[in-house]
């Protein structure tokens, strides 16, 4: 492992890689801080640009943007009560009241320090846990990979926002879309309606761009197009020692909690932030101060969401399991670069894996250095109206989608999914579940059929092998647990009082 880490360190200090890292931090900072530009959307936009790059630079760029986005989402959450990313939702609770009290600089300082600390704890988790998981996963064959894909699909239970039926519908839509095109094993065209472009299937980039970016611009087009909040003058102070002393316990607890939650596939940084916030309230001697501008109320979600975002790379790199929508896109990026995340990645591409791991550590150090000047510059960028941002976002989506296969047909697919995403978003349909199906569908089908080929068509191969059976057992548990919980909570609830 030490050898790998040295390899990663040597790689990251190469001028070309370090420059990409700096660009990623800058792009991620801006993207995360702009409401309406999510980390997922930004990575989708940047993804086509990485085609021409060598894999190490490409993944430094993508993962840096991912982490920097989670970090900078707190800026608008604190200043405008508008979280730049979903992960910063809980930061609003105490961040915005501090701004109202004229303590915006202090609130931002706490958030910067907490984010960097959380991110570094997450990176340490990544360094020690990912190789262990990867070594274990070397024993994997087709049935185990199929079981893993199924386990990945059960993330639907958390992504479906409490409505499992609609979540499963989303996953099946995604899985079905992934079957369109020529069957890779038999060469039979499936659901192509004799259309030549459909023979090569539906690429996931137009679906992603449509569902997330186009639908968001459509939604925003109905709003008032200017951010009207006035910007107050403030000075960010990161190392405020009396405050550090005050938040130290919360910072440690939330960083560890966030890292542990992030390792679990599918739980994600948003949940980690919310859970850490509620734990901070539970453990506090003054819970009544929360929601009114308590520094711990910023430290808890910010350290947890950053540590969770970094440690979410553990299942992605070592098992090939995405933790959420953004990591699902990164998983797709691996596939597009001809790489398969999972145990073999550690054996075949040690330099790439350890460069990603080291870059995660470096990003968090850079955050402390760059946060202050960025927040100052950002105060000016925030004034860009959506009438400029919207066309630019859509232009990038069209070019990005076209560039995948040089196909205008893909742009039409993007438009179609833009409308679908817009209406699904309005009825709060969990869009991420569709992405989950599209990304994991091909892996699941291929390994399922390969597994059956290994066993001569005998389905019991999936439950006769211990690892595969255990993973499928976990998958079943992940799906049934929320249902059982619902049943039991209904039973224990007192009957409603009539009249």
């Amino acid at each position, binding site marked *: 492992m030490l050898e790998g880490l040295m390899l990663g360190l040597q790689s990251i200090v190469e001028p070309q890689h370090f420059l990409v890292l700096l660009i990623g931090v800058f792009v991620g900072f801006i993207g995360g801080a702009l409401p309406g530009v999510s980390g997922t959307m930004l990575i989708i936009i940047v993804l086509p640009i990485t085609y021409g790059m060598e894999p190490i630079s490409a993944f430094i760029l993508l993962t840096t943007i991912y982490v920097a986005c989670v970090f900078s989402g707190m800026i608008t959450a604190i200043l405008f009560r508008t979280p730049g990313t979903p992960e910063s939702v809980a930061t609003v609770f105490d961040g915005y009241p501090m701004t109202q009290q004229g303590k915006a600089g202090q609130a931002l300082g706490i958030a910067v320090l907490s984010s960097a600390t959380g991110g570094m704890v997450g990176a340490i988790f990544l360094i020690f846990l990912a190789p262990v998981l990867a070594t274990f996963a070397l024993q994997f064959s087709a049935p185990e990979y199929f079981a893993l894909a199924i386990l990945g699909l059960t993330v639907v239970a958390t992504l479906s926002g409490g409505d499992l039926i609609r979540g499963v519908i989303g996953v099946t839509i995604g899985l079905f879309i992934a079957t369109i095109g020529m069957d890779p094993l038999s060469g039979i065209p499936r659901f192509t309606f004799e259309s030549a472009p459909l023979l090569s299937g539906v690429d996931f980039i137009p679906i992603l761009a449509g569902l997330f970016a186009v639908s968001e611009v459509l939604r925003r087009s109905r709003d008032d197009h200017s951010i009207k909040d006035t910007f107050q003058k403030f000075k960010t102070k990161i190392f405020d020692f009396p405050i550090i002393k005050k938040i130290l316990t919360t910072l440690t607890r939330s960083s560890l909690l966030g890292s542990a939650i992030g390792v679990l596939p599918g739980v994600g940084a948003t949940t980690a932030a919310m859970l850490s916030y509620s734990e901070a309230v539970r453990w506090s001697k003054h819970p009544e101060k929360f929601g009114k501008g308590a520094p711990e109320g910023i430290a808890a979600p910010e350290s947890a969401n950053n540590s969770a975002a970094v440690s979410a790379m553990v299942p992605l790199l070592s098992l090939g399991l995405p933790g959420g929508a953004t990591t699902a896109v990164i998983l797709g990026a691996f596939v597009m670069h001809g790489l398969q995340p999972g145990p073999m990645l550690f054996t075949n591409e040690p330099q790439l894996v350890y460069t990603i791991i080291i870059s995660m550590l470096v990003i968090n150090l850079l955050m402390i250095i760059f946060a202050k000047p960025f927040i100052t510059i950002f105060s000016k960028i925030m004034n860009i109206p959506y*009438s400029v941002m919207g066309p630019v976002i859509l232009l990038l989506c069209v070019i990005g989608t076209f560039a995948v296969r040089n196909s205008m047909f893909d742009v039409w697919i993007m438009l179609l999914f833009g409308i679908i995403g817009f209406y699904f978003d309005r009825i709060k349909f969990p869009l991420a579940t569709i992405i989950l199906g599209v990304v994991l569908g091909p892996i699941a089908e291929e390994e399922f059929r390969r597994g059956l080929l290994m066993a001569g068509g005998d389905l019991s191969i999936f439950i006769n092998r211990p690892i595969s059976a255990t993973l499928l057992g976990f998958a079943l548990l992940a799906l049934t647990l929320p249902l059982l919980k619902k049943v039991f909570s209904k039973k224990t609830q007192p009957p409603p009082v009539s009249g």
Partner: protein
Amino acid sequence: MKYNGILSIIVISLSIFFLVMTFNLPDTESAGTINASVWPMMILFVMLLMGILLALRTYRERAKGHIKEPKESESKPENPQYHWLVMAVLAGYTLAMPLIGFLVATPLFIVLLALVLGMTKIRSLLLTSFISHGAAVLLFLYGFNIPLPRGIGFFRSFSFLIY
């Protein structure tokens, strides 16, 4: 609000339609292999089942009188139909690009979209269009050599002057 009801009808109809298509896929099964239709069939059966469950749940909730329908995420938008305008501009751009080329279609697209999104000053419109188009040309045409559509006839010849 009948969103779940409509959603369940769409899901059930689509899954039945594609299930019928799946049954008509050619048979390629040989020793140890499975048909190309098996995996989509499994998915579509689950989709159909979920559609039915959603319909039943919606029906039961309506019968009981406490409808748990998801509420629309917006209350009262300022421009309720503007998304159709944006979509029309986007569709027009997608249609026009293969005919008049990326170089000509893009500035028009940016100006129109910026207008729809509330930009009114002519100077701002021209500036936004010029800067974003210029940046896109530099980045994607020169930087990444992406063969964006050149258009036909005159537009094609014109594009060769630039890239």
